[in-house]
């Protein structure tokens, strides 16, 4: 019973789309990803405040505060600079990352207690970010080349109709076999992502809410909620003070700028 339904839907989706476009689900998935990326191009630079609330199964809570600056790069991953404000004992720690669509990112960390900048050579992007349920790879910028795609179906969602697309990470150091993404037809905003672990069982669900439009074009969610189904922990990520085109440039994103970041 349960097997039949998705297959039917899949068949319907294929039958409906094939006469018009003669497109495979893979091509369709890629096309959707390209469109989404296309619509989000050109924001230039931005900064925002992040508040993370971590919870464990026992109900304990903990808070992290981070300020984030990003610079859009053409034909490469974005540059980003994060400054940690809370917990108090990491205040002033700054993290600079040049993300790349394929291969290891370049990463530097400024440790105020040591007064030194350290380069971190690691291919790992799948570990938890500051002990939260967000992996580093969940937070880095979306690039077409990071995944291969497969369109699954159209489905009703909060924002009307959504594309449901499987995304398969290309990087073999990823913690996932795939992500399932729900993206609305109108604005190509992500509403939900399901993460499947290395043995392809559901690991986490991320939901987005409170979307606002900036510069009349770019949609950003105020709240991202990540729930880990396997360990019962969850993390809320709240965004505030989004500012676009504040005049950041490459010189704000280098080793020297790290020390000044606080």
């Amino acid at each position, binding site marked *: 019973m349960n097997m039949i339904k998705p297959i039917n839907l899949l068949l319907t989706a294929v039958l409906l789309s094939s006469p018009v476009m003669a497109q495979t689900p893979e091509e369709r998935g890629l096309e959707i990803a390209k469109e989404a990326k296309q619509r989000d191009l050109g924001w230039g630079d931005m900064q925002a405040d992040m508040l993370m609330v*971590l*919870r*464990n*199964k*026992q109900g*304990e*809570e*903990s808070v992290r505060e981070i300020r984030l600056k990003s610079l859009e790069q053409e034909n490469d991953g974005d540059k980003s600079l994060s400054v*940690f404000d809370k*917990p*108090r*004992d*990491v*205040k002033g*720690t700054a*993290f600079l990352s040049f993300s790349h669509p394929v291969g290891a990112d370049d*990463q530097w*960390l400024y*440790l*105020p*207690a*040591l007064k*030194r*900048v*350290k*380069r*971190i*050579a*690691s*291919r*790992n992007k*799948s*570990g*938890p*970010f*500051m*002990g939260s349920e967000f*992996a*580093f790879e969940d937070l880095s910028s979306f690039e077409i080349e990071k995944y291969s795609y497969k369109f699954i179906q159209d489905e009703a969602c909060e924002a009307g109709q959504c594309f449901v697309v499987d995304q398969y990470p290309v990087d073999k*150091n*990823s*913690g996932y076999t795939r992500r399932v993404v729900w993206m609305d037809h109108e604005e190509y905003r992500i509403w939900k992502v399901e993460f499947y*672990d*290395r*043995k392809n*069982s559901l690991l986490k669900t991320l939901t987005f809410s409170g979307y606002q439009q900036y510069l009349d074009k770019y949609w950003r969610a105020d709240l991202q909620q990540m729930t880990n189904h*396997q*360990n*019962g*922990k969850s993390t809320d990520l709240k965004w505030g003070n989004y500012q676009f085109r504040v005049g950041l440039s490459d010189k704000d994103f280098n080793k020297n700028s790290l020390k000044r970041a606080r």
Partner: protein
Amino acid sequence: MKEKLFASVLRHPILVVLFTIVLVVLAAAGAKNLVFKSDYRVFFSDENPQLIAYESMQNIYNKSDNVSFIVVPADGNVFTPETLDIVGRMTTDAWQVPYSTRVDSITNFQYTWAEEDDMIVEDLVMEGVELDQPALDRIRQISISEPQLLNKIVSEQGHVTIVNVTVQLPGIDPVAEVPEVVAKVREIQQQFMAENPGLEIKLSGIVMMNNSFAESSLEDNATLVPAMFGVVIITMLFLLRTFSGTLSTVVIIAASIASAMGLAGWGGLYLTGPSAGAPTMILTLAVADCVHILSTMFYEMRQGEEKKKALLDSLRINFQPIMLTSVTTAIGFLSMNFSDSPPFRDLGNIVAAGVMLAFVFSVTLFPALLMILPVRVKVRTEEDRDWTRSLAGFVTDKRKLLLPGMSVIMIALIAFLPQNRLNDDFVKYFDTSVPFRQATDFMQDNLSGMTQLEISINSGESSGINDPNYLMKLGAFSDWLREQPETDHVNTLSDTLMRLNKNMHADDETYYRLPEDRELSAQYLLLYEMSLPYGLDLNNQLNVDKSSVRLIGTFRNMTSNELVKLEERINNWFKTNASEYNAQVTGPNLMFAHISQRNIQSMLTGIALALVLISLLLGIALRSVRFGLISLIPNLAPAMMGFGMWYLIDGQVGLGLSVVAGMTLGIVVDDTVHFLSKYLHARRHRNADAEAAVRYAFGSVGRALWVTTFVLVCGFMVLAQSSFKLNADMGFLTAVTILIALIVDFLFLPPLLMKLDGNKEKITVENSVGVEK
């Protein structure tokens, strides 16, 4: 009432048989709901304080259920390109184990090192990199000098290594989850062993242990129950020489087991190691009812009665005694409801139900079957009667010697009782024929034991773990714990921080020490956490607001006493050295270490209550307070003597044995009931003096007592062959206790009666409770 019942049963035997079969089938259909719950946690009630502490620690950090692949290369060297390649591939495959959340091995160990201002974090053995001899030497050097790996993941000689898989069982379908994990784990084991001849892979860990509870019990039932049926059939054929009687008895036993287990299924009970022993016990206990009915019937038939009349007489004579003994046996088993450990409550209830069902069947289905089947009686010689008569002669002649002699033996045995030591080492719940036990023993001999203590140290403030004072205490405690003779391994955050401090100072060895500044340590951890891969994070050691650290100590396998002592020493260390922090010690082994103590305390209430109820019943049945009180001695002494003897045999009392006293109480009472009622019958109705009454009692029930005791001892000795030590010990001690009870009833009770009762010529019904008919 009962006369009418017996009459109608004997008039419509076929109807009774069909009707009972329908009922039995309906009840037995519940067995389809009866599934095995393979989880050691079933041994603990929801209120168990150790379980509550443990569960809350699992919720704060991550669960620590695991499977260990113990990899033993044929050439005795883990550090070869071939073996490292195998370990690497196995690490990757282990991620496919259902519910796995973490895999630790030498190959994916996150090795950190420094190069000027660069910090490099990478797998200790990188995939697809050619390994030359210097590289292999370097990997060996790093592995055996890394405190996180040495003795936990790799042996010091480098001849054995472990791939450890942490699983997070959702607990939604506890029946299916463990077998699912085990199936995948065994598939990986088989595949790697097939591809690499000479390579050996053994499986240990909590999940394998959970699985062994189910497998070992189910295998037991597949061999022990048929073996026991064999014993019953042979004994009955040999001693009672009746085919129809034996067949009918087997039917009664089968019906009792099927209905009792079926009802357990309808009642929504799970099977567990102990409750899986229920069929063997019901089987053993159900035999006695049938033996009593058959022997009286045959006696009557030999006297010349026709079958129907003989059967009716037998039912009439035996109804009250077998009801009484069934009820007392059931009360004994029901006393297990006071146990702190739910599986033993289930066992007690299932067996009690089985015993009462066996009683009902033996006064309905049993006579109906005997009516339908042909029954012939062969003339028998009187040799057995001679045997009991000479025993009676011996007892009455030597009573002046027997009474003090037996008293001394009884007191001497009971004196050993307090010498027994409490011990629940769950590894030793399985005998050495069980693969899990073999693997775990091997692991203990070559790497580390399976005993783990989880110690959570709470700083009391958010991010408090970075406080230099806290870290200093954590480091000092880790050092102290490592020095303890029981310790095999300590996994502690202080090691990680020392290594990071060194890395941050260009790998300068002099910085292999704890950071002296709160911010420094917080920032190191931030850096480190950001560079770890999926599943190898620190969330299993740190809570979310970084106010506490969980340290995991691994120890050689030890007794409950030793473990509780170690727990005390740990608590004392914190009291004297770090009283500002709150430390909590938990772990599955510790839960088991405390359970016998708790269980014995709770069982004592149950036994006391059962004893009161049974004594009351006996007083009423014997219609005498005085004899009710005298019966206390032969009822209580056997279990106490059994435990005294246990000290001489083994001396370690665990969870399984803590219920034996309650269980045997109801069984050994039967012998006393039969002997005393015959003795009193002679005294009251035959004007016999004490000595003659003893002779009469021996003559009329001596043989039946011997036969039923023989069957019971055989039955529990069959259970004693179980590979599951809880059941094996329980079976063995029960058998010993029942045998002792018979000896006490034959050699001690009669001289005691003659002593206490002998100076009165004729007994009057003093303090009579019931009224003579």
